[in-house]
Each structure stands twice: as C-alpha cells, then as structure tokens.
C-alpha cells in the first residue's frame, strides 16, 4: 500500500493530500470499519438456516462471508445493519436486534 | 498590405474547384520558394452556392490573416456569378480579372460594372472538354491565374505541375497528360492578349 489511508484524515492539510486525491492502494475499504454506523444488528440463527444463500447477493456491504458453499456469521466490522438480509431470508434465520 | 504581395480573389460555385485551385496555386507558388497563403471563405454553403477563396503570395513572411479586399487579380470560375456577385469589388485598377467564358472579351467588359483594368477571358469548358473529355475548370483557371499574374515563369509552373499531378494522380496516370495539355492550351490561348503585359506585382 503506497497511500497509507490511516495517515490521511479529514484534518490533513492540503500539502499532505495526494495529487487529485488519487489512492495509490487497493481494497482500502477493508480498513474502513463501516460497522461502526450500525444502529440495528442482524442476528444469524444457524440452526434455522438451510444454506440457500439468498441473503448473500443482496447484502450491499458484502458482509456475509461464504466458505465452501456455506455462509458463516456476519462480518460485523462492515455490516451497516440495513436489514435486507433479514427480509430476504425465507426461513426466519436472520432477525434484527436493536442497537450495535 | 505591402505591395510586394500578390493578392488574388477567386469566385466560384461550391463544387467547381475554386477552393482547390487556390490551394493548388499556393502549393505551386510555395514550390518556387515563395511565402504563400491559400484559404477559402467558409460558410455552410453547399454545391452551387457562390464561394470565395483567396491567395497571398510574397517573398516575405505573410502575417495578415484577414480576407482580401483590394485584390490584384480576380478569377471568376463561373461567369453566371457576374450577375449575382460584385466580382470587381475593390479590384485594383492596375490589376486584372480573368473570366471563364465562351464569350469574347468585348462581350464580358460591359458586365464588369465599369471596371477599367485588364480583362482576360478563358474558355475553360472548351479547353477542358478537348483535353480531358469532361468539364473541370480547375486546371485551365489555375494556368490562367499564373499566366496573367506572372507570379512565376511558365516553364517553372509546368515543371512543378507535372510533378504535382504525378503525385496526385499516381493511381490514375491516364489523366496526367490531359491535365498538362489543359495547362499549356490555356497559356497558349492567352499569349496574344498578354503580349507586353508585366507581372501584376513585382516581387
């Protein structure tokens, strides 16, 4: 990573910003913990889940990790708690809880 | 404009090649080492609409980028323009006008709104049909402009045009001879009239 986004903040003076605000780096969104914005939290109930994976493609934040064709628990570092997955689940395996 | 610059105005109709003739003249004059300008006055006009093109030719660098208002020479590629366009407007009395027509000089002079300078006529249709089998007024009128202005010696002009046609018509060499003949025939047709005439502008 050639641009360390941790060294650039909303307080940086203009001299410290990159030319054209280019990011000389990739996948920097991994370091941006949007999970902090969550006001409602999805809860995964594994025993109700049939592994149909309908929840996975509808997640706007790619916060449902899939391994060997099976979903795992949420990536709470990036889940913003929008609740779309809960609506998409036909088996009631995702419920929304108030708060973080 | 300095009097060492020959200024020419061409009047034609869109599609007749007046612009091309002006650009060809710039080209051939450039080859003799002159500074040149060849440019059309552009508009959205299409085939058949009156168009104007210009040449400046000088031994010095040409910096003026305006149209020409007091030309030394006017070339009228289509005689029907004599009615609709003021072709002699601003034309210098010590200059000349060339009209492409089958009419005689005496028939043309009354149509020139009292212009008192030298008048030349060239039957470009006849020359073109005889030499090329079709009506292309371009080559005869270009030759006439060189003959009347005397901007370069006839022999130099012929040599340069030979080379230029060889390049331009590399893929249809059969038309080169006809075009060359059109040039020399035009010079021949004007020879009598030009006896004793001087170059329009001494450079």
């Amino acid at each position, binding site marked *: 990573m*050639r641009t360390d986004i941790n060294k650039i903040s*909303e*307080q*940086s*003076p*203009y001299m410290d*910003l990159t*030319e*054209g*605000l*280019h*990011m*000389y*780096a*990739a*996948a*920097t969104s991994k370091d941006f913990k949007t999970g902090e914005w969550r006001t409602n939290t999805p809860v995964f109930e594994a025993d109700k889940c049939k592994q149909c994976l309908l929840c996975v493609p509808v997640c706007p934040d790619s916060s449902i990790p899939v391994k060997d064709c099976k979903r795992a628990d949420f990536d709470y570092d990036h889940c913003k708690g929008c609740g779309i997955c809960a609506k998409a689940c036909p088996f009631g395996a995702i419920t929304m809880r108030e708060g973080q | *404009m*300095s009097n060492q610059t020959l200024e020419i105005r061409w009047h034609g109709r869109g599609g007749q090649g007046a612009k091309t003739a002006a*650009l060809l003249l*710039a*080209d051939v004059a*450039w080859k003799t080492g002159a*500074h*040149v*300008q*060849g*440019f*059309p006055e*552009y*508009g*959205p006009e299409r085939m058949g609409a009156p168009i104007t093109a210009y040449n400046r030719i000088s031994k010095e*660098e*040409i*910096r*003026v*980028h*305006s*149209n020409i*208002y007091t030309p030394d020479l006017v070339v009228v590629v289509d005689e029907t323009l004599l009615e609709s366009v003021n072709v002699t407007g601003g034309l210098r009395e010590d200059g000349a006008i060339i009209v492409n027509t089958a009419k005689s000089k005496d028939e043309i002079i009354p149509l020139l709104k009292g212009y008192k300078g030298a008048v030349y006529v060239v039957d470009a249709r006849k020359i073109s049909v005889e030499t090329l089998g079709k009506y292309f007024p371009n080559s005869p009128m270009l030759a006439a402009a060189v003959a009347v202005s005397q901007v370069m010696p006839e022999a130099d002009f012929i040599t340069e045009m030979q080379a230029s046609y060889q390049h331009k018509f590399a893929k249809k060499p059969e038309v080169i001879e006809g075009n060359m003949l059109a040039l020399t025939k035009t010079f021949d047709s004007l020879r009598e009239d030009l006896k004793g005439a001087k170059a329009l502008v001494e450079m």
Partner: protein
Amino acid sequence: MAIRDRMSGNEAVAYAIKQINPDVMPAFPITPSTEIPQMVSTYIANGECDTEFIPVESEHSSMSATIGAEAAGARSLTATSSCGLALMWEELLVAASNRMPCALALVNRTLSGPININCDHTDGMGARDTGWIQIYAENNQEAYDNFIQAYPIAEDKRVHLPIMICQDGFITSHAVENIELLEDEKVQNFVGTYQPEEYLLNPGKPMAVGPYSVSNYAMEARKNQELAMEASKEVIIEVAKKYKELTGRGFELFEEYKTEDADYIMVIIGSAAGTAKQAVDDLRAQGKKVGVIKLRVFRPFPAAELATALKNCKAVAIMDRCESYNGNGGPLGSEIMAGLYRDRVFIEAVNYIYGLAGRDFTVNHVYDIFSELEDSVVNGNKIEQFKYIGLRE
C-alpha cells in the same frame, strides 16, 4: 535541418500528432476540427503511426475515453471545436481535477446562437475556468510548435494537468501557409516517452482515480490543483526555451512586438495578432509608436507579467474575440484590467470586442483602434470602456 513545407493548420496539428505518436485518440468529428481525427486515422491506416483511434458517439464520450485512457497509463488526446467542447464541459473539469496530463487540439469556433460555424474564441474562453492549460496560436507554425510542447508541459511532475492547444477555426485551420517541420526523431526526443509513475493498468500497483471526496477534502484538493496551475507557468517557460534552442522559434507566455518604446499597445490572441503586427509596421513607418502583445498562454494567466509589460505605455487596447454578456467587456479585458489594478499600473485601458462568429478583422481596424487610443490620450476624448469593432452601425 528544418523541413520546409506548406500545410493547413489542421494538417500541421495532425502531422505533429503523427510525429508524437500518442497511445490513444478518441474523437468525434465537428467542423472545423474534423480534419484532425480524419488525417490521424489516415496516418494510422497507412501504418505511419500506431495510435489507437477510438471512434466514439459524442464529444462527451471522446473526452471521457481520453480521461480513461490517460488514467490507464496511455498518452491520450482528442480534438474538437465549439459545441463539441461544450459537450465535454463536465469531463474537462474531471480531467483537470484528476490531474490527467492529456491533450486537446481545439480549433476555435463560436457557439450558437445564432448558429454559425466560423471563428471566435467563445468555445475556448467558455472553458477557461475548467483547470486546463490553454495555449493559443497565431498561425499554422505556432499550432504545430505548440502541440509539440504540449506533453512536455502537461506531463511534467510539477504540473500533471490537461492542456488545450488552440488555433483559429478556418482562419488558420483551413488556410495553407508555409511551415517548418522538425524531423520525427527530433520531435520524439523532445517529447520523450510517457512514463507515468502511477497508472491504473499497472500490475501489482493498484490505484484509484476520482474517489468521492467529502467537503473536508475537496477544498484542499482544489488548492493543490490551483498550485499546479501556478507551477505550470515556469514549466511552460522552460519548455518554450528548450524548444527555441531546438528550432530558433517561439515565445514564452506572450510575444512583445515593437513594444519597447511604444506609447500604445494592443493585446490580442490568435491569428489576428499577425494582422495587428502588419498594421504596427505600417504605422511605425508613419512614425507612430505602437506595438502588439500577442498572448500565447491564457491559462495560467500571466497577469503580473502583462502588467509589467504594459506599465510604460500610455494606453492599451485589449482585444476580445468573445462576448462575456456581463455588461463589463470580455474575459481578456476583465483579467488584464484586474492585473493592472493589482499591480497599480494606471494606464488608459480599453476593451474591444472583435471578430465574433467569423467577422473579419483587418489592418484598417487596427489603424482605427490605435488612432482612437491616441486621440483619447492626446486630446482627452473619452472612449467607451468596452466597445465592438467592425460592427455595422
């Protein structure tokens, strides 16, 4: 040895492009710049250069594709005129703010309406605040020379900004004039190969171009862009000096023609500068102390340099080939006058609007303007602060 030739302004720019052999040229035809992409595609078809030509469906796309190609790491350019430039408007700012050193061959033409295809500077002046460097040409030679200098300026590390090389539509673009060309090798050595440090198609070194910026970043980004434009001035001068060493030709920010002892100076842009210089020679022969400043670089604007160049004259005529519709004159008039005031140069200054939509500008107009300036200074006759020249009244 310089190669002597004769070419139209469009041919000259197309020839420069062929010699530079840039990587990508997306373009859409529009009068009077159409011949440039047409000729470049012919060069490509004949194998004389290997630029990737992208035929696009609009100028919005040609500028977008130019930016995309440049970001990918390709030396890119396009050409346009008039409404074509207007349709690029959004992308012009994107190119500049993303610091893309791409080039644009602008053949100046007015904008509607009334609808008209002829020359004035409405298009270029309309884009004056988009963050592009703008360089204007008097003749075909300068259009060629300026284009060869485009990439060495734009790609300089201190700059990284897009550059617009402008010439007057029809007046130079379609006029055949004498020209001196450089050998291909000299052009290629002068321009060099493009080696961007960072670009999108660079395996193992990913980057992002054009990220969204919240307010906390955007103003700082603009400041950096503005500083690059300021820095481009010295780069333009350096490149012009280097080019002059190579060819013996050219000017830096502007040309000062017989201004040293001049009482009256005309500041003018583009092909009309040649006409003005001829008129100055004619008037000098009559003993009039007159001169011309031909502005080459409009962006960055050399305000202080112009104020210094004008400080010893009695009056200046500032010539705008563009109407600003602000009741206050044209863009060149406004900017020079602001510069004069800032540097406390209090001379008589009159802003003239000329040559709109192809209206011819002649040596007689120049005589009239100088005579009016002289009358104002000598006899105290007031001149309107901005006025049209060559208008039927």
